[in-house]
């Protein structure tokens, strides 16, 4: 794809490297690595701070006014339910939109508008989705501060990402396979359902999981729709009120007592571990996808 550039690069590398050139390359490397090291150091510090609190009871206790006995059980359950529900809403809509744009849409004003709009939505600050959720889902549709309202809000937030990832996945299916399916007499929807969708599904799932890894830390839209910061019960249906891990962390960070800051650090370790787990699953899926040969 970039053959000319790499050839030039190789040539240039073979030429004698001058001292200023080496110095600049070193500065560039430092500029790249320094922020990474800073973050590594910050995470290391929070891990050290959090270590005494990271035990089983932290994961299985309800929040409390005493920092030593407070836990993240409702937040953990809330986040899990929220992510599941978000995926259930975002996948069909996002995949449907991607299918329409890739397989059905003719170049038209409407198509161009939809494309432009998806790009615009991707740039809207997440807190504005929260205002939308507050007014439309929580108030007008009467969902209140429920899991469902939170999941709908997050699903809309993820939609541009899911659509873009699904489109990329759809594009990797070679046209020859579709043509073969048409030649066998299958109509369009049957070809999509029987040939295209099964083949692009791992790619779509990878994209969805990566966007969920983004969504798991979303705090602002959930606060805006009014998710609770102190919850001493577990959600029992999609209509029950809830809290989520990032909100619990925010709540603890905002308190003055140092004990709660330790809890926040422990919550952060759990949250980042979950995020890395999701990323890991996505990378594993992608590797599997690349290994598999379909044709």
């Amino acid at each position, binding site marked *: 794809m970039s053959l000319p550039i790499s050839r030039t690069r190789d040539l240039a590398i073979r030429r004698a490297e001058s001292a200023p050139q080496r110095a600049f390359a070193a500065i*560039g490397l430092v500029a790249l690595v320094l*922020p990474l090291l800073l973050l590594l150091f910050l995470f290391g510090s929070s891990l050290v701070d959090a270590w005494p609190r990271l035990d089983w009871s932290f994961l299985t206790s309800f929040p409390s006014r005493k920092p030593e006995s407070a836990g993240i059980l409702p937040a953990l359950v809330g986040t899990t339910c929220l992510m599941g529900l978000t995926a259930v809403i975002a996948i069909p809509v996002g995949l449907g939109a991607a299918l329409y744009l890739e397989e059905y849409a003719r170049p038209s004003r409407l198509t161009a508008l939809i494309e432009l709009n998806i790009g615009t939505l991707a740039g809207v*600050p997440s807190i504005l989705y929260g*205002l*939308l959720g507050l007014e439309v889902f929580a108030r007008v549709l009467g969902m209140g501060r429920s899991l469902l309202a939170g999941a709908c809000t997050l699903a809309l937030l993820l939609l*541009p990402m899911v659509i873009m990832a699904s489109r990329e996945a759809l594009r990797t299916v070679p046209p020859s396979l579709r043509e073969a399916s048409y030649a066998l007499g299958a*109509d*369009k929807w049957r070809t999509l359902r029987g040939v295209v969708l099964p083949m692009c599904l791992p790619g779509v799932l990878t994209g969805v999981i990566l966007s969920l890894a983004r969504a798991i830390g979303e705090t602002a839209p959930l606060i805006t729709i009014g998710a609770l910061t102190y919850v001493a019960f577990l959600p029992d249906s999609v209509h029950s009120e809830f809290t989520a891990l990032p909100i619990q962390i925010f709540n603890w960070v905002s308190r003055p007592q140092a004990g709660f800051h330790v809890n926040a650090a422990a919550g952060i370790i759990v949250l980042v571990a979950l995020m890395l787990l999701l990323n890991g699953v996505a990378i594993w899926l992608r590797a599997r996808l690349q290994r598999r040969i379909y044709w």
Partner: protein
Amino acid sequence: MTSSRRHPDATGADAAAPGGDSPRAARSSPPPRAADPADLLRPRARSERLVRIFLLACALVSIVTTLGIVGVLVRESAGFFAEVSLADFFGDGQWTPLFDDKHFGIAPLLAGTLLTTVIAVLVALPFGLLAAIYVAEFAPERVRRVLKPALEVLAGIPTVVYGYFALLYVTPALQHVVPKLAGFNALGPGIVMGVMILPVIASLSEDAIYAVPASLREASYALGAGRLRTVFRVVVPSAFSGIAASVILGVSRAIGETMIVAIAAGQQPRWTLDPRVPIETMTAYIVQISLGDTPTGTLEYRTIFAVGLCLFLVTLLLNAVAHRLRRRMLQGGWT
């Protein structure tokens, strides 16, 4: 990272798709549109039509979302501006909607937002640009393959985590260096925000630099220029619009960023550019009101929508500019 366009349905319309396209994809011109076999027996079956309508409805959800955001912001803001004049909104220097002596001048919130954003860009721009030049022009392929995804990880860290770092590690550390730095201030969160938008600037700038055609570099070498001179005199200027777009997108991200400033910058709207004192940004104000129990329908409740509308317009404007610059880069005639 990018897809090769093998699918015949992928037409020129994709070139207009913002965000997802990288310049590398744009360099291979889209293949000519092949006859879609499905056209031959255009489905007349009712089920096919229903499927098509359902899929179109999915695609329209995104339009409805945009209309919803605009509609909600405009409707509630209209209620707000019925009671507060535009002149007061932009002219009054105080923002005290929760006090008895109410003032609704958004200037302090704008100043807070501007301050944290400028600090973030001052951090992210030099680091991001250097990193981008290094990765695109100097890094061995192996380093590139490891470091670029590592940088993407920075972009994925939840912002509530960044907020925690800003409040409990960065600000205390800065207090040793900067005299009279308050516990809540604009400096700490600004710097952390810079780390957060660094990947945006680095990654998009790298795309732009990498997309500069080899022929320009070769011409420069042929004229006897060294590598550094080629990079700074030829490559970076050629990639300028792409780099500018990346910076503008970074700025837009910083303006919309919420949790870092809500946690670490304080909640005191203040008409100042002093980075050492507590301030409040537009986003942090929305969070502050959302956490309290302001009854719906009151003027205080409507303020968050008026502030939200401001935020929306500013980010929309910046994104549109960045989009145009990127388009210019993608169609820049590098063929």
